[in-house]
């Protein structure tokens, strides 16, 4: 178990760091705005367009619960993807750059524990943020449209979290391989865009993180969805990323 030596202590440190550096409160606050703002935007789009367009008579469809959920998914996917990259970019690279990785890794700490604590904290921060966005979205959708399925919204939250965690994991690998947080962010951003483009092809898309969006929408609308393939693919991607990160980091010189 020496590879995991120090895991419990380190995850507490990571979570404390998330709070003290305001990373957690800021991300949660922004996700709350996205979660609450999406159904609001969907509901008041006609009024906004009318106010801006004046007498031009631009036709706007009547807002529906589907539009609210689509808006939520789109906003969380775009904003959340970037946030996941920003959260993960400095996880390891910044610690190597600053020299704090050397401080910890000259203590009885397994490198797997060092990485594992960071990934777990990253996942928890994203989970908290997505949960707040999902709950906020559910409440405002219920107020402005109709009460959606709570279980379905929970499913949406889990799938959104998984897709964001996958982007974070890709950026995390880059952060482990490089000594620059900016380079890691660049790699994460290229992955975000590249996977978005690749997911336009349905046969490929359902194996990629963006492929989780369609089943998430179906679940939120109270219907059934085939989640086994996209969830399995996302989990495999996550595990592969963490495996690569560990294989590279365990022999790395600091």
């Amino acid at each position, binding site marked *: 178990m*020496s*590879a995991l*030596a*120090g895991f419990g*202590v*380190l995850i507490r*440190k990571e979570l*404390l*760091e998330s709070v*003290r*550096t305001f990373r957690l409160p800021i991300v949660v606050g922004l996700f709350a705005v996205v979660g609450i703002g999406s159904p609001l935007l969907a509901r008041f789009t006609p009024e906004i367009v009318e106010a801006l367009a004046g007498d031009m008579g631009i036709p706007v469809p009547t807002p529906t619960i589907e539009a609210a959920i689509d808006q939520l998914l789109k906003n969380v996917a775009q904003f959340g993807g970037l946030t996941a990259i920003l959260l993960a970019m400095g996880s390891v690279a910044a610690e190597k750059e*600053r*020299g*704090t990785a*050397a*401080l*910890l*890794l*000259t*203590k*009885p*700490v*397994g*490198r*797997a524990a060092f990485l594992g604590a960071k990934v777990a904290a990253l996942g928890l921060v994203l989970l908290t943020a997505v949960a707040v966005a999902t709950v906020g979205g559910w409440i405002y959708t219920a107020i402005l449209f109709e009460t959606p399925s709570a279980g379905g919204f929970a499913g949406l939250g889990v799938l959104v979290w998984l897709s964001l965690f996958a982007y974070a994991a890709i950026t995390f690998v880059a952060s482990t391989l490089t000594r620059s947080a900016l380079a890691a962010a660049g790699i994460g951003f290229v992955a975000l865009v590249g996977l978005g483009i690749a997911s336009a092809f349905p046969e490929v898309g359902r194996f990629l993180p963006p492929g989780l969006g369609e089943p998430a929408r179906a679940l939120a609308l109270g219907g059934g969805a085939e989640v086994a393939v996209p969830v399995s693919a996302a989990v495999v991607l996550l595990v592969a990323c963490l495996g690569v990160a560990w294989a590279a980091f*365990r*022999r*790395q*010189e*600091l």
Partner: protein
Amino acid sequence: MTDGPIVRTIGLTKRYGPIVALDGLDLEVPRGVVFGLLGPNGAGKTTTIRLLTGLARPTAGRAEVAGVAAGPDTPELQRRIGYLDQDPRFYGWMRGRELLELVGQLHGLRGARLRGRVTETLARVGLSDAAERRIGGYSGGMRQRLGIGQAIVAEPELLILDEPVSSLDPEGRRDLLALVGELRASSTVVFSTHVLADVERVCDRVAILDQGRLVTDGPLDALLEEYAGPVYRLDPEPGQAAQVAALVAALDAADWVTTVVVDGGVVSVSVRDPAAGGRALLGAVVDAGVALVGFERQRPTLEDVFLRLVGRDRDEAAA
């Protein structure tokens, strides 16, 4: 605990591309000593320390700490050491006390023992009053003292300090050296430094590195003795001009004396054989009827030895 050396390196080599940072280092550090690692910039001191702490991997050879092979991802190794980097970096958002608690917990300390050790360590490094302040607001000297605190909080078998006095003011330096002296009782201390006077004050043994190679190592006293010149210094009591003149004349005539210099009333005598010369010299002093205030064999400073060895090493390398 075994009786063997706490640090052993065998043919330890580290290359960075074409640069040989450390070249086949064979070194042993006995337990319970304060061990000075000396050398000019680029000598291989920090590379040696990075290999011992597992921050780097050797290109060839190996290093062991308390019988555990050194290398990355070896918590069994790190459990035995406390380490202070030459430029220690910390989490600015953390409080001083929290850092020591974190390190203590990583070393397995819990509860009252952890709290006790942390409080004691903060007092020992003079940071009790700043314990609840964020490290981001600490001065350079306070960070250095915190660095020492985190290295000693878990009472490691081996304490490795890389240039520990570099950013300390004279008072801080004096306190650190006193602390290192105290730690001798509980830990083995290896520290690298450029400040040779500090080494002379606290070290029992030294190793001198140059250009990645070990030039010499051994007990400090033996090293100073080995390189002591064959010169004796006589300090006669005042008011003996005639006796001293007679002594100088006798020494000038002796075949076991090479030179005699009188400067400010002090007589410096170079002899051919230090051991025999010392005895003969005392006989000559008695014969001349000179009363002495002082009689000593001149010992070199560590700086003299260092410059002589490193200079000679460079000359040989150039030849």
